[in-house]
C-alpha cells in the first residue's frame, strides 16, 4: 500500500534523525546514571530499559509519520481537534492524580499524558486552519483563533493543573499567528495587555495559582528563602550543575542524583545529572547537538512548499525550543520551576512518542518540498 519513492528516501533528513538519536542515547546513559543500581531500588524494569523500549516504539512511529504525505492531515483537523479536546476533558474527570495534578489517563496496561497528544493535534489543527486563511488575518479572525486554539485549551490544561503546557499552548498560538500575519494593532494591544496584567493583575493571578506553584515562583526569585523547603529543587539543581566544573566528575561518578539529593532526576532534572558528570565541556557538546537540531528543523519552515508545511514546522520547532529553554533554564536557576521535560533526554514514554511524531512531521515536510501537486 505504501509507495516509497526513491527520491523520498534520498530527501529523508538523516542529519536531523541521527542528531536526535544521538541525543536520545545520551539521555538513556544519563537516565542509567541517575537511577543506577544498587543505590536505586524498586523500579522494575529499570528506567533506562523502559526508555530504550519507548525509543524503539518512537522510531517506528517516526517512520510511520514520514511514510504518508503530510498534506493529507489537513483534511481531518476538525476530527483531530475534537478528539484532543475530548482527551483533555476526560483527564479532568478520570485522570490519575500524581503529585497533586491530574495529568494522566490510565488505560490499564499503560498510562499516558493527554496533553502530550494534544500538543501534536494542536499544532496540526492550528496549521491546517491558518493555512487556508488570507494573510494578514483580520482582527476578528485573530481573536476567534485565540479563543478556540489558545484560551479553551489553556483553561482545560491549567485546570489539571499543568501551567507549563498551558502557557506553551498560548505562546505557540501567538508565534504561529505572527508568522501567518497578525494585525499589528492587535499585536501591540496584546503586548500592552500582557504588561498591564503583570503590573496590575499579578495579585489576582497569584491567588489563582496553587500553593506549590506560588512556592516555585518565590523560590525562583530567591532560592535561599527556604533552601530545605521550597527552594530545595533549585538549590540542589544548581549545586549539581556547578559541581561538574570544567571536565565533570565522570560518567557514573556523579553523586547528587544517585544519592537522591536531586529530585526528579530522571525526568525534569536530567540535565543537571549530565552536567555534573560531563562538566562544562560535555555540556558544550550536548548544546551543539541541540543547536544543530534546532537550526536544521527551523530551516524546514523556510523551504516548505506550502503554508501548511511552513506553519507545521514552525509550530513544532517552537515547541522544542520552548521546552528546551524552559527546562534547561529551570535547572540553571534562570527560569521558575515548571514541570516540563527536556526533549529527547528526559525519561517519559508519551513525551518521547509525541516528540518523535513532531520531528517526523517536520522531516515529512522537508521530504516532500519538491512535490508541487497534491497526488
Amino acid at each position, binding site marked *: 500500500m505504501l509507495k516509497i519513492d526513491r527520491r523520498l528516501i534520498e530527501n529523508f533528513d538523516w542529519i536531523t534523525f541521527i542528531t536526535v538519536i544521538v541525543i536520545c542515547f545520551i539521555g538513556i546513559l544519563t537516565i542509567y546514571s541517575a537511577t543506577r543500581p544498587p543505590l536505586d531500588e524498586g523500579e522494575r524494569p529499570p528506567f533506562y530499559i523502559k526508555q530504550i523500549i519507548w525509543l524503539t516504539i518512537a522510531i517506528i512511529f517516526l517512520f510511520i509519520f514520514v511514510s504518508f504525505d503530510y498534506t493529507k492531515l489537513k483534511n481531518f483537523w476538525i476530527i483531530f481537534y475534537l478528539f484532543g479536546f475530548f482527551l483533555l476533558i476526560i483527564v479532568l474527570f478520570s485522570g490519575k492524580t500524581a503529585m497533586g495534578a491530574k495529568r494522566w489517563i490510565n488505560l490499564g496496561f499503560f498510562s499516558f499524558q493527554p496533553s502530550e497528544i494534544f500538543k501534536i493535534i494542536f499544532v496540526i489543527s492550528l496549521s491546517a486552519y491558518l493555512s487556508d486563511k488570507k494573510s494578514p488575518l483580520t482582527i476578528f479572525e485573530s481573536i476567534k483563533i485565540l479563543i478556540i486554539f489558545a484560551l479553551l485549551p489553556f483553561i482545560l490544561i491549567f485546570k489539571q493543573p499543568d501551567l507549563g503546557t498551558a502557557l506553551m499552548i498560548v505562546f505557540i498560538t501567538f508565534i504561529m499567528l505572527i508568522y501567518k500575519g497578525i494585525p499589528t494593532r492587535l499585536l501591540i494591544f496584546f503586548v500592552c495587555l500582557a504588561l498591564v496584567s503583570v503590573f496590575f493583575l499579578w495579585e489576582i493571578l497569584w491567588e489563582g495559582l496553587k500553593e506549590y506553584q506560588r512556592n516555585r515562583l518565590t523560590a525562583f526569585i530567591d532560592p535561599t528563602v527556604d533552601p530545605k523547603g521550597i527552594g530545595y529543587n533549585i538549590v540542589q539543581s544548581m549545586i549539581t550543575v556547578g559541581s561538574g566544573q*570544567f571536565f565533570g566528575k565522570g560518567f557514573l561518578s556523579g553523586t547528587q542524583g544517585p544519592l537522591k539529593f536531586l529530585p526528579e532526576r530522571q525526568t525534569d532534572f536530567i540535565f543537571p545529572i549530565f552536567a555534573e558528570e560531563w562538566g562544562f565541556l560535555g555540556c558544550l557538546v550536548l548544546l551543539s547537538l541541540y543547536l544543530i537540531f534546532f537550526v536544521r528543523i527551523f530551516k524546514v519552515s523556510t523551504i516548505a512548499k506550502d503554508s501548511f508545511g511552513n506553519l507545521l514546522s514552525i509550530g513544532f520547532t517552537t515547541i522544542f525550543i520552548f521546552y528546551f529553554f524552559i527546562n534547561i533554564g529551570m535547572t540553571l536557576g534562570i527560569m521558575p520551576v515548571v514541570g516540563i521535560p527536556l526533549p529527547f533526554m528526559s525519561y517519559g514514554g508519551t513525551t518521547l512518542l509525541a516528540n518523535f511524531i513532531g520531528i517526523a512531521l517536520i522531516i515529512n515536510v522537508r521530504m516532500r518540498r519538491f512535490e508541487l501537486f497534491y497526488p
Partner: protein
Amino acid sequence: MNNIKNKLYMGLIFFIFFIVVIRLFHLQIIKGEVYNKLSEQNRVRTIKIPAPRGIIYDRNGIPLVENIPSFSVSLSPEYTQNIDIKILSKILNVPEEEIANKIKKKSESVYIPIRIKENLTFKEVAMLEARKSEIPGLLIEIEIKRHYVYKEATAHLIGYLGKITEEHIKNNPSFREFPHYFKVGQAGLEYIYDGKLRGIPGEKVVEVDALGRELRLIREIPPQKGEDLYLTMDAFLQEAAYETLKNYDGTFIAIKPDSGEILALVSTPSFDSNLFVERIDPKYWTELINNPKKPLLNKAIQGLYPPGSTFKVITALAGLEEGLITPEQILTICRGGLSIGKWFFACWKKEGHGPVNLRKALAESCDVYFYELGRILGINRISKYAKALGLGSPTGFGFDEKNGLVPDEEWKMKVLKTNWFLGDTFNTAIGQGFLRVTPLQMALVMATIVNGGIKHKPTIIRNMQTNYERLNLNQNNLNIIKDALIAVVNEPSGTAAQARSNLIKFGGKTGTVQVVSKKVKEKFSHKHFEHHAWFIGFAPVDTPEIAFSVIIEHGGSGGAVAAPVAKNILEGYILKKRQLNVEN
C-alpha cells in the same frame, strides 16, 4: 516580510543558546568549586565517635567508675509508617501511645533514628533480635555507659557526666565541635579532670544519601581512650563512711597525715550519680535542687561551719607556742562561767570544771579555761595561728572550695565597722562567733598537729607531686596536745568517752556548735535549731595513719553524736579490711 521574521527567529535561537552557555559558564567555571564543595557536604557526613573515658581507681586499684555497654533501640524514620508498634510495645514494655508519640514528634528530621528505649536488658535485646525481621528499620545500638560502682558513696567526689551546655563552651571553646550527644564532666573529678579522662574522639566519615542513610564508610579514625585516674582514696573507708553517714546529714573527710592524700570524702544526703548518666528524670532533679538539705553540695569543702570546740586545739597550741602557759599550769578555776562587767560567759558545764590545766581543759572541753587563755593571747595571736594552720584560705585541693573566715581586729573594723571586744576574743577562742571553716580545713589542722607540724596541700590523685609547708612548731607542744586529744576519747571524763573503741584507739576533739541562741532553742524544739556536732580526730594514736573530721548537721553534741559516728566509720573500715583478709 517573512525573511525578517526568519532572521529574528534564528537570532532568538542563538540568543537562547548564548544565555544558557553564559549561565553554565557562571555555574560550572566561576562558581564550580563552591558548588563542588557543597555537593561534597551533601554527600559526606562526619560522625564523631566519643572515646571511652578513663577509669577511676582507688588507692588499692579498685575501680570506682566503669564503662559498661548499654543497649538502646531506635527506629529508622523512613520505615516508621508501616511498623507494628504492638510488637515493640510488648517486648519493651513501653505503652503503644508513647512509641507513637515519639515517632510523631521526631518525624520532622529525616536523618536521625528515633530512640525508643535506652538501657535494654539482655532479655529485651534477645527478644528484639529474634523478631528483627518483623520490624523494619529496627536499630539496636551499643553505647558505652558510665557506671558509678559506689553510687551515693562517691557521688560528690567523683561527680557525674552530662550534656555540653553553653557555659561549658564558654570555658572550653573546643567543645563547640562536639556533637550534641557527647557528654562531659559536670561535677567532681569527672569535671576537674575531664581533659584527661575524656580521651580523643574518633571520627567516622561516611557517604550518605538524601535520606541520611549511611551507604559507605569512607574513612575511620578510631577514638583514643582517656587516661585512667588513680586516686589516693580508699574505697573501703569511703564505703564505711557512707554506710554510717547515710543516716545523718553531714560529712566525713579523711586525710593521710604524712602526705595530705585524701582517703575518704563523703557528704550526705547524697545522690546516685548513675541517674545523671542518662537524661536525668526532671522530677528527681527538682527534688535534688529543692531539697533544703542540699544533697548536691559537697559539704566537706563547700560547707561552712563555726568550728566550735574543735578550735580549742588551735587556741591551746597558740598558748603553748607563745610560751604563755605550761601544760600543768592551773590557769583558772572553772565555776561554770566567767563574768566580765554585765556580760556572763558560760561554760557548757553549768556546775563548772573546778581547777583546770591544759590537758583537762582539752579533754573535758572547758570553756572558761579557753576564755582565760584567749584573754592572755589576744585575738591577733589566735588568728595568726589559725591562719598558719590553713584556716581562712583555700587549701589548694582543686575543687571549688570555700575559704572560710578567721576574724581579727582589722577584719571587724573593715567589714562590720566596729571595734573588737574582749567578748569577741572569748567567742573566737572557743570556736564560736565569726569563725567559719570547712571540714576539709579542720581535717588538715588535725593532720598537721599529728604529723609534727607539716601543712600539706591535700591531694586526691596518686603519685602527684604535692606541696607542703613545714610550720615552725615545737614537737613537744604538739605531743602535749596530741596526748590531751587521746584523753578526750580514752579517759572516762573525756567529752568523747562514749566513743571509745576496743578495735582501734583513736584521739580527737569534739565540738558542738550553737545554731541559734540557747533561749530560742529551748523555746522551739525544732530540728533545725539543733546544734551541729563536730569531731576531728586521728587514728591510730601511736603512729597516726589517718586524720579526719566529721560534722553532723543539727546532730546534737559532738561527744554524743559526731565522735560515735567517727568510731563507727573507723570500726566499719577495720572490719571490712579484716573480712577482705579472711576472704583472701
